[in-house]
């Protein structure tokens, strides 16, 4: 019952712009490693990998997805950073009864309002990030916030989720400024944030916008002036782009850091052999997701989306980055998240030695409670 007698895995992500570094070819490599470790076949059927660039555009993404499923017999679509693309694909994949293993996208709606029985949201989401970073920062005394928010759906979501966390933890939100995507100069917004006298400036944006905000915050003496920055969607690659000189002291949440333990270092070593750089949490997540998917197929011996995902939800997850995690009913993968702080240049022992761990956020508290998601098929 394996369609086309081959299990075809389609890695669909940003190969050419904003998120190419955190996903891109790296994710493809991660997927290949997973297949390798699983063994080239599942129940005697070959496993193939294809990949493509969705340019962060929903229409391009869904176009490729359709083609893959209708014409090329792809059985699962993996990674898909950029919430808008992910949200466009989820229903499509469900309609075709294939599997959607999302590692790259942030939107918590994927397992909330927009949940699908064929979707698994693997690595992280806006809630986990805001809970991790937001919660921790408030605990550390940063109880008044001002948001720098990208005026896009994901920015709003990030701001909304974090604001809730902050309020829940007894902090207050003094205001926010919504900036257009791809703004090059943030000094004006930063000045407004400064004027708000908030203790913490939450950066509810991504990629270049985040980097520019942090760079210019340093330049305008925001941090030395006593205010703290909280990057809500920051990847290790962004830190690399900033340099420790500017990024030091920044607190952020990730699901994986290459230098956590021997297992992660081992994985990184293999990954680096191919990619010549360190893996991001998204890429690490792709590995885990693909491996788990193949295990599920092995059990149920079919590639029908619903069945496979149902099986994935039955089995616990255990790999180098996820310890006894689980796929929840709504498709959310519950696993530990980690709060890090960026080292000072003096503390760093070399290239890519950027983080020091602050605390681990256990899976059951890191994510949104099942019932609050508003996912249609979650009963109770």
């Amino acid at each position, binding site marked *: 019952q394996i369609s086309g007698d081959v299990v075809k895995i389609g890695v669909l992500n940003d*190969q*050419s712009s904003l998120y*190419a570094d955190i996903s*891109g*070819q790296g994710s493809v490599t991660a997927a290949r490693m997973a297949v390798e470790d699983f063994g080239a076949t599942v129940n005697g059927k070959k496993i193939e990998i*294809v*990949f*493509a*660039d969705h340019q962060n*555009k*929903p*229409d*391009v993404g*869904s*176009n*490729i997805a*359709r*083609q893959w499923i*209708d*014409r090329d017999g792809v059985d699962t679509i993996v990674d898909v950073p950029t*919430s*808008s693309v992910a*949200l*466009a694909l989820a*229903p*499509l994949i469900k309609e075709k009864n294939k599997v959607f293993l999302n590692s790259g996208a942030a939107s918590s709606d994927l397992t909330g309002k927009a949940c699908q029985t064929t979707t698994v949201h693997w690595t992280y989401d806006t809630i986990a990030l805001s809970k991790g970073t937001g919660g921790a920062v408030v605990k550390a005394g940063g109880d008044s916030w001002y948001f720098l928010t990208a*005026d*896009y*759906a*994901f920015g*709003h979501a990030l701001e909304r989720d974090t604001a809730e966390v902050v309020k829940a933890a007894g902090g207050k939100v003094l205001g926010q400024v919504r900036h*257009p*995507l791809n703004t090059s100069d943030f000094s004006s917004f930063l000045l407004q944030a400064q004027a708000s006298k908030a203790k913490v400036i939450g950066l509810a944006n991504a990629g270049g916008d985040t980097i520019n905000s942090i760079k210019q915050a340093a330049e305008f003496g925001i941090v030395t002036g006593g205010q703290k920055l909280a990057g809500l969607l920051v990847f290790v690659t962004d830190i690399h782009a900033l340099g420790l000189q500017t990024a030091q002291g920044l607190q952020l949440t990730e699901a994986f850091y290459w230098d956590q333990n021997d297992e992660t270092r081992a994985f990184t070593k293999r990954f680096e052999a191919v990619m010549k750089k360190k893996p991001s949490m998204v890429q690490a997540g792709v590995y885990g997701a693909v491996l788990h998917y193949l295990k599920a197929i092995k059990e149920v011996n079919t590639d029908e989306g619903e069945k496979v995902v149902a099986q994935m939800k039955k089995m616990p997850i255990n790999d180098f980055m996820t310890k006894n995690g689980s796929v929840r009913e709504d498709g959310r993968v519950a696993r530990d998240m980690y709060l890090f702080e960026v080292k000072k240049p003096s503390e760093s022992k070399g290239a890519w030695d950027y983080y020091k761990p602050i605390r681990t956020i256990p899976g059951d508290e890191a994510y949104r409670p099942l019932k609050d998601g508003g996912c249609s098929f979650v009963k109770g």
Partner: protein
Amino acid sequence: MDRATRITFALMIVALVAAPYILYPVFLMKVLCFALFACAFNLLIGYVGLLSFGHAAFFGSAGYVTAYTVKMWGLTPELGILLGVLTGAGLGLIIGWLAIRRQGIYFAMITLALSQIVFFYAVQAPWTGGEDGIQSVPRGRLFGLIDLHDSMAMYFTVATIFVLAFLFIYRVIHSPFGQVLKAIRENEPRAISLGYETDRYKLLAFVLSSGLAGLAGGTKSLVFQLASLTDVQWQMSGEVVLMTLVGGLGTIFGPIVGAAVIVTMQNYLAEFGSWVTIIQGAIFVVCVLTFRRGIVGEIMGRFGPKGAAPTGGGH
């Protein structure tokens, strides 16, 4: 139509009928939508000499309107598309009216500016769904009968729309109106001194073009069951310029070829990942340097009757 055109047209029809049994229909539909879009654009640049850098506004907003009315009001596809066309034309009337008195690059820029304002609206307005766009739009039943979720049915609907629009454009170009347009492109003051209110002719041409762009946009949003910011972005306006140029500016079949080439490129290059843009760039460079009149333009220049080739360059 002259003989060459007739033959090419016949071949095109044959190809359109045969294609879906060989190639992937959704891909073909994408090509057709963009071909139509490019033809609409070419009507303006190729035959009036107006370079609009804001056509995405018509293409995209028509897409939104069609998607929204079909999804939210449950309109039938044909009505949805019709509304799309009207949106395009209406918007065209406003933007055209503001822009039409400008010359050359300034015309391009004012259209760009206005389309960027449309884009801003699309980002801000709640009903367009920000960068998520309007998703999982039902294709519905054509005239309440034919179920368009069957991709063949959808394909032949799109193909029909395309052919009709193509014939319409051909007729416009070769109408008395078309003649005046040519004259205006060649020497506007002279056309005025012959008693033509050139602005009105240009405006009408602009509205026709934007309406057709709307047709393309509306149809596309049904094909992909999605309307998104991509289609209102200035890059989209740029893309249609590229398609037209690659195919052959001011040639009747050029835009179609151009669209086919570019879309195919994007489609099959997608697997080259990060090399896509490089390859794309290289192709544009080659186009401009080696066959500037565009694919079709060059062919006509080489084999076609003398003077048949479009006139690249000028002002």
